[in-house]
């Protein structure tokens, strides 16, 4: 009421749009774009009846960079650094999806050693991503210490990942037809040393957080998503696997290296936040298994195919779709080429985008603290949603 006297209409376009469906006796609250629980610049408008969330609507676009347009104005290999910046958590997954799409379009055969290196580095990157999520999620639930322990391990993993990729966050070490650097002896040695250390840390995480009664009571039965809901929203990744859908792109799309290794797809059937949590904790262990086996089976050979495309290389005409299991779900790159050095169309399928679209339904009727917990359990990386 004061705002109208001041000549200010309350809220912006999205607020007014949201208010159209609101009840008279409720409070509309903007969580974000600057809010501790939204991990970046996501904004969620919620309609609250007391502490109960009646409706929620995520508002996106605060970190929109139009990567798909950049894909059309940069040559195919020049776009690789961009893919490392779509999702800061699991940059190599995006790297792989893009170079995979180009390789599939051109029909390139990637050297086997390069494929192994891709598997190893992507899995290390997946663990760093899950550790980041684990810390941030427990922070959402009010436990401040776990993130520090997670970052302790994550820093070691980033040191390791820095050896082949040269950077600590926005890795972009995959190239069309291979990878840019070979694994050093030191890398292999350090990873071998680190795996048992990490295996010792995981029980500590379990005792400190997973088994904690407060956390279990906060997550069990909260934000239940059933399999049908996952399908309707295109939810993938650990979120879908927490709802009993045993869908992992690593298995579903027949990745040659993964098929030769002994590992399981982590699945839980409860569909609540705790199931999503446990799936990710299991995945860290599975990733360690994969890394260990892949290191043991690492073949010798070149890491980049002969005649790997140069900057001004013209891709053949046609289209291709390549999907990778990212830390957050199915990363897909749809590439259409008209035979030029630029892509005619690049579509980046972001897992977080689809996962977040289910949030409005999952959060309906929950208490505000649960809404925050569900948001955290989806493992959102905002730059990936906005692209």
């Amino acid at each position, binding site marked *: 009421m*004061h705002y109208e006297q001041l000549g200010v209409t309350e809220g912006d376009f999205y607020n007014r749009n949201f208010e159209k469906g609101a009840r008279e006796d409720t*409070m509309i*609250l903007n969580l974000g774009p600057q*809010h*501790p*629980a939204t991990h970046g610049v996501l904004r969620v408008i919620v309609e*609250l009846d*007391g*502490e109960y969330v009646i409706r929620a609507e995520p508002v996106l676009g605060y970190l929109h960079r139009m990567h798909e347009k950049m894909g059309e104005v940069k040559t195919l290999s020049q776009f690789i650094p961009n893919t490392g910046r779509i999702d800061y958590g699991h940059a190599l997954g995006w790297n792989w999806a893009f170079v995979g799409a180009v390789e599939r379009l051109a029909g390139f055969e990637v050297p086997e050693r390069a494929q192994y290196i891709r598997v190893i580095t992507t899995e290390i990157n997946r663990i760093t991503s899950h550790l980041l999520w684990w810390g941030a999620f*427990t*922070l*959402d*639930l*009010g*436990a*401040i*210490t776990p993130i*520090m*322990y997670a970052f*302790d391990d994550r820093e070691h993993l980033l040191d390791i990942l820095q050896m082949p990729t040269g950077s600590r966050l926005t890795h972009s070490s995959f190239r069309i037809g291979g990878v840019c650097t070979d694994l050093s002896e030191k890398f292999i040695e350090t990873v071998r040393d680190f795996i048992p250390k990490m295996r010792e840390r995981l029980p500590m995480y379990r005792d*400190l*957080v997973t088994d*904690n009664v*407060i*956390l279990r*009571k*906060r997550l069990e039965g909260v934000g239940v998503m059933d399999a049908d809901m996952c399908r309707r929203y295109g939810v993938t990744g650990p979120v879908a696997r927490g709802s009993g859908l045993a869908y992992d792109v690593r298995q579903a799309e027949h990745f040659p290296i993964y098929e030769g290794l002994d590992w399981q797809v982590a699945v839980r059937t409860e569909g609540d936040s705790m199931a999503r949590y446990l799936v990710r904790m299991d995945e860290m262990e599975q990733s360690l298994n994969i890394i260990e086996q892949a290191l043991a089976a690492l073949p010798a050979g070149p890491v980049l195919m002969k005649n790997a495309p140069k900057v001004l290389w013209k891709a053949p005409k046609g289209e291709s779709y390549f999907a990778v299991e990212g830390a957050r779900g199915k990363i897909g790159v749809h590439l259409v080429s008209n035979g030029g050095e630029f892509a005619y169309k690049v579509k980046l399928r972001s897992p977080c985008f689809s996962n977040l679209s289910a949030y409005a339904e999952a959060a309906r009727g929950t*208490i*505000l*603290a*649960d809404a*925050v917990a569900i948001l955290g359990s989806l493992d959102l990386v905002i730059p990936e949603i906005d692209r």
Partner: protein
Amino acid sequence: MTFLAAIPSELIHIVIGMVAIMAFVGIHVLVLVYAERKGAGHIQRRPGPFEVGPHGILQPLADAGKLIGKQLFTPTNADPILFWMAPVLAVFPVLLLFVPMPFGPVVTVQEVNLGLLLILAFAGIGVLSTMLAGWASNNKFGLLGAARTVSQSVAYEIPLLLAVLCIAFQKGSLNLSTIVEGQGSWPWQWNIVTQPLAFLIFLVCAFAETNRAPFDLPEAESELTAGFHTEYSGMGFGMFFMAEYANMVVVSGVCTALFLGGWKGPGIDGVWWFMIKVYALLALFIWVRWTYPRVRFDQLLNINWKWLIPLATLNLLGTVFLMKVF
């Protein structure tokens, strides 16, 4: 000189006591801020404050200087009177709570017959300040924080009272000094041995009443940004901060007096035993905060209504029954 002689010595006693309390609270807030940050740091395997002074020992002073230097900011459409009354109301009742605190055999500002009652009564004012702060800041997060405070504090005062009543019945007094006198020097002579359940209930309620993690819902950072003090800047925030730490000292002190034998201990009785026990409890407060996640609002109330109140009532009835029998 005749003028001074005309002042009743009681009054001088109280004035000196109040000044001493203020100094005590001020120093303890600074020490606790440092201890908490250092403790959090070491639990998380980092150094904590390190740059200001040796091992960051001057960090609380620097923080205080920063807070004092900041602009005091009243949000648009806030109620300025209530808005600025709240932080004042948060700090001053807490100072009064130290009046009947039995630091040592003679080191008490004023022995009050109904000391326990006085502490419980004035502690209730803290809720009012939190509620006013949330309400007056014209902020939705603040409002939610205020609503949470009221239901949380009101609910948790019941088991707290019931737990305290057990001791009061057992010792037949509401005077804290008398209660301490009634306990022996050795740990097995303390009330915690006869009333372990009351001690646990008191401890849980103490966490809730002081808004400390895992019950820090009114200022739940990840949900309500900063809850009731979202809009406070500078010393307005600083006073809430002070009140929180002063409250911690008070509940630790009361807990020590009621359950842990107060100033009594093996060897020579005295203030040091009281302070050692208070610091141990404060360390527990800090330790717990950096270990657990936050409970949810309905769970918080469920713990209270479904567990603490029935248990406290049963405990009280049992105590009364046993006292009648023996």
